[in-house]
């Protein structure tokens, strides 16, 4: 005990120092380390979440881009298809109209040809008839003689033909 006293060891002081240390330990544990660790953990969690979010966002973005490309490509082919269809339909319609017109024109031509032919025939007949009457009258006048109608007719026909 004498040796301890020589080294300045006093159990009261020793106890006081230990109590002091333990009080600091408890206070720091409760009011410093726990909140600090909590804050650090929260930040770590936040950063990790941020990283995960960023990664998922970039993945989503690339997915979107891919989807966009696909949609654009689809739209392009669709547009091409529609254009082609329209072209085809238009061509078909044009062809149909052309044949119709042709047919109508042909019909009209035929009709007019027929009519011309008929008219000519009619005119010829009329002319013939008129000519016959005129000739008859002229002949009557020239001859000033009456013939029997049978003879007359025969004579005219013979002359005419």
């Amino acid at each position, binding site marked *: 005990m004498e040796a301890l006293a*020589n080294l300045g060891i006093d159990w009261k002081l020793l106890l006081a120092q230990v109590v002091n240390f333990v009080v600091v330990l408890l206070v720091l544990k409760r009011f410093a380390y726990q909140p600090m*660790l909590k804050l*650090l953990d929260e930040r770590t969690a936040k950063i990790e979440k941020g990283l995960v979010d960023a990664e998922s966002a970039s993945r989503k973005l690339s997915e979107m881009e891919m989807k966009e490309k696909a949609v654009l490509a689809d739209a392009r082919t669709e547009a091409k298809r529609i254009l082609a269809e329209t072209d085809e339909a238009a061509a078909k319609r044009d062809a149909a109209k052309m044949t119709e017109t042709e047919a109508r024109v042909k019909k009209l031509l035929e009709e007019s040809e027929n009519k011309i032919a008929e008219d000519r025939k009619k005119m010829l007949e009329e002319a013939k008839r008129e000519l016959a009457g005129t000739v008859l009258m002229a002949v009557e006048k020239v001859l000033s003689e009456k013939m029997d109608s049978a003879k007359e007719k025969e004579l005219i026909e013979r002359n005419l033909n």
Partner: protein
Amino acid sequence: MEISIAAEKLFMLGTLPVTNALFIGVLVSVLLVLITQRALTRWQSVPRGLQNVSEIVIDGVLGLLESIMQDRGMARKFFPLIATIFLFILLSNWIGLLPGLGTVGLAHENAAGHATIIPFLRSTSADLNFTLGLSLFVVITIQVTGILALGIGGYAKKFFVSPFHKPYVVGTLMGILELVSEFAKILSFAFRLFGNVFAGEILLTVMLHLVPYFIPLPFLFLEIFVGFIQAAVFAMLVAVFLKMATTPAEH
């Protein structure tokens, strides 16, 4: 120049003699609490200033503990103890290095009749009462942790080995040696810290008395370094011993 191994008494508080080392111990405690609270109240998600320092200390100590204990949960459980030991010793070591250390104090007349002063500042670590008290506390904590982790039987197996099994008498002797070393830890913890810090203070005092200007500077830097190293050594040894205490015996 008067060098005293014991801390000098400032005044009596009831029956408790308040020494300068105890005074500094209380001062260090208050400082620690104030600094950490200040760091906490200004805590932001983007660290600045004091918060950076606190984060470096916390992250460093926690990382070191995890590497020593190989167990995240255990590291976090013992983190407050290790960090407080480290910070408390570090701060008390460094406070003892403040200039004017031995010059401000109470007037005193020693036994021989010479007028001297009792300095207010004496590093807490340069007082055996503190180092011995802390090492007792730490060693008891280590034993309790070991018993809680392994059970009384499992923990006792570390020290009491039957002489009739594989390593025979060697194992038994090793066990007894281990038991002795547990008690030796108290002394080694206490005197390592006390010796380093006290020697440093004496060294600085002697140097200051020999050559007052410039020459003591390298020694001052050396003592700053030693103060840090001793705090780290104490804290690391506690961590290592805690890990060893919770590891079952391999017999």
